[in-house]
């Protein structure tokens, strides 16, 4: 399969255009306190309760950097297979906005803490590498609330000064599907590392999307537009599709595309120009005189590298090798650290392959249904493993297993206990089975004659009757064998 086949194309009258996408992801660092102040970062506090004189930019206050935030950025850089820079510099990015009390954002410009890296995506057409341009540390802004008063904006500075990592991709993405896979992969990596919770609803993960189009075959990039602060993957995909079509339309009409900042209106499903950001790219960066350059000892970087947890790509390989899973199963089971932990616990105690099948089938469906995270599953990994083993050993059939599963969800009970107390054990004693089958056959002599005369589809009817009589407990494989034997006789 050609990878190009899966790119996102827009057809114009004058030819076919491909879309080029680059992402600037803003990821809030998991830390107790803010990047340059000792205020709490906890989400959901009362407005302006987690604000210090530094976060609200009172005169004379000096920023002091949080060492854990630096480590978190280095860990993330290592997780993105990126170059960690021993020397980086904090700059002031100057702009005015009501939720930015300093009048500038402390960020990193020429010398970011992390340089080039890469992320591997698993697409249906194979794996694709997306280049990372850089990762830098910066402060988050406060929050403006526009819907509390028709003529005023309310400002909450609780978010002001929380550490952000801005992760800039190379323009390597070619479709909304790849954007989806890229964001999810970044999120997975950061959640494994414990550097960002990736919660898009709470705004811990947001992105600016750079979109341009070019005629298929052209090597030159077109003029790009930046769509600001899109906070869900679905909206990103919608914004990209809208924006690509808008740009193609302009080009087809012989018009030029202005390089500009746009916003995505989720109600109208369109992007539009942000007039207030006309001067947005005139940030007049300069090194922050309040902060010395950040120098990292190589030993610190090496130590952090040694202490990294196993990352999803490696874990996936190991799952394939160790548990005999296929690539798809391994992918799903490593997508969240909690899922992979649960699976490993189950796989240690039961059949590895069957465990994967039942987890991805019934367990995920149930969790999804109840809107539960796997860490809050009503079925413990140990009980789930026992259920899998009961199926594997032939103690219960797959059909009965589904009933046991339901009871486990309701009661949280151990499957052995449920099978025992409800008498759900599979009937695998050939003598007992023969008794049941003989009884069915003698009750239905006419059908037996028809079967022998060639009406072979009656076999299913007999199986049905046997199952009914045995309460669904007859071992299907044995029942088949014995029934065939008796019908021949």
């Amino acid at each position, binding site marked *: 399969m050609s990878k190009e086949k899966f790119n996102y194309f827009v057809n114009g009258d004058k030819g076919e255009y491909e879309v080029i996408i680059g992402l600037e992801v803003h990821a809030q660092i998991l*830390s*107790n*306190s803010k990047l340059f*102040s*000792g*205020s*709490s970062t906890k989400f959901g506090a*009362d*407005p*302006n*309760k*987690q*604000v*210090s*004189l*530094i976060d*609200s930019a009172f005169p004379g206050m000096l920023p*002091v*950097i*949080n*060492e*854990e*935030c*630096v480590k978190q950025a280095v860990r993330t850089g290592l997780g993105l297979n990126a170059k960690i820079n021993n020397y980086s*510099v904090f700059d002031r990015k*100057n702009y*005015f*906005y*009501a939720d930015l009390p300093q009048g500038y954002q402390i960020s990193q410009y020429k010398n970011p803490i992390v340089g080039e890296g890469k992320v591997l995506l698993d697409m249906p057409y194979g794996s694709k590498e997306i280049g990372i341009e850089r990762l830098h540390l910066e402060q988050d802004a406060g929050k*403006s*609330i*526009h819907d*509390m*008063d*028709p*003529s*005023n*904006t*309310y*400002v*909450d*500075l609780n978010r002001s000064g929380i550490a952000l990592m801005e992760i800039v991709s190379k323009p390597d993405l070619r479709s909304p599907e790849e954007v989806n896979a890229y964001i999810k992969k970044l999120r997975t990596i950061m959640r494994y590392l414990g550097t960002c919770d990736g919660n898009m609803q709470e705004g811990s993960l947001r992105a600016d999307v750079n979109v341009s189009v070019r005629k298929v075959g052209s090597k030159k990039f077109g003029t790009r537009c930046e769509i600001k602060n899109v906070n869900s993957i679905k909206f990103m995909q919608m914004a990209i599709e809208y924006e690509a079509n808008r740009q193609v339309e302009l080009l087809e009409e012989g018009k030029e595309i202005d390089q500009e900042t746009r*916003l995505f209106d989720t109600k109208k499903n369109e992007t539009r120009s*942000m007039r*207030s950001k006309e*001067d947005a790219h*005139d940030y*007049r960066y300069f*090194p922050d*005189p309040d*902060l*010395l*350059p*950040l*120098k990292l000892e190589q030993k610190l970087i090496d130590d952090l590298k040694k202490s990294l947890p196993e990352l999803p790509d490696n874990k996936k390989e190991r799952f394939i090798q160790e548990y005999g899973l296929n690539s798809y199963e391994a992918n799903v089971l490593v997508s969240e650290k909690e899922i992979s932990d649960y699976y490993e616990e189950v796989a240690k105690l039961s059949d590895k392959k069957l465990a994967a099948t039942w987890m991805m089938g019934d367990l995920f469906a149930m969790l999804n249904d109840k809107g539960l995270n796997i860490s809050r599953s009503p079925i413990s990994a140990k009980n789930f493993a026992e259920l899998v083993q009961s199926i594997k050993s032939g103690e219960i059939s797959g059909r009965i297993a589904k009933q046991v599963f339901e009871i486990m969800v309701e009661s949280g009970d151990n499957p052995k206990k449920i099978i025992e107390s409800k008498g759900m054990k599979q009937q695998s004693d050939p003598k007992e089975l023969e008794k049941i089958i003989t009884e069915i056959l003698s009750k239905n002599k006419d059908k037996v004659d028809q079967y022998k005369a060639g009406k072979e589809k009656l076999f299913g009817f007999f199986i049905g009757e046997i199952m009914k009589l045995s309460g669904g407990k007859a071992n299907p494989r044995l029942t088949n064998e014995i029934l065939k034997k008796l019908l021949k006789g």
Partner: protein
Amino acid sequence: MSLDKEKIKHVAKLARISVDEAKVDTLTKDLNSIFKFIEQLNELNTDKVEPLTSILNQSLRSRKDEISDGKIREKILKNSPKKSEEFFIVPKVVE
């Protein structure tokens, strides 16, 4: 580098400084002479000199990741020209 009147007005706008139209000419002249003075430094060859971001030859001081501040809403909001019990209030800024 030299600045024209338009550039001066643009920078003033970015910095939210109001500049009296009558003063733009003198301001342009003054700023350009200051630039000219500073540009003498360009005569020095600095190809092999690392940019100096600080005169202190030491690394950044850091702190532990502990909560040691906040919960001073009253103090924070005290000097705000317009406020509610919980929020700063500013003129509507909406796209």
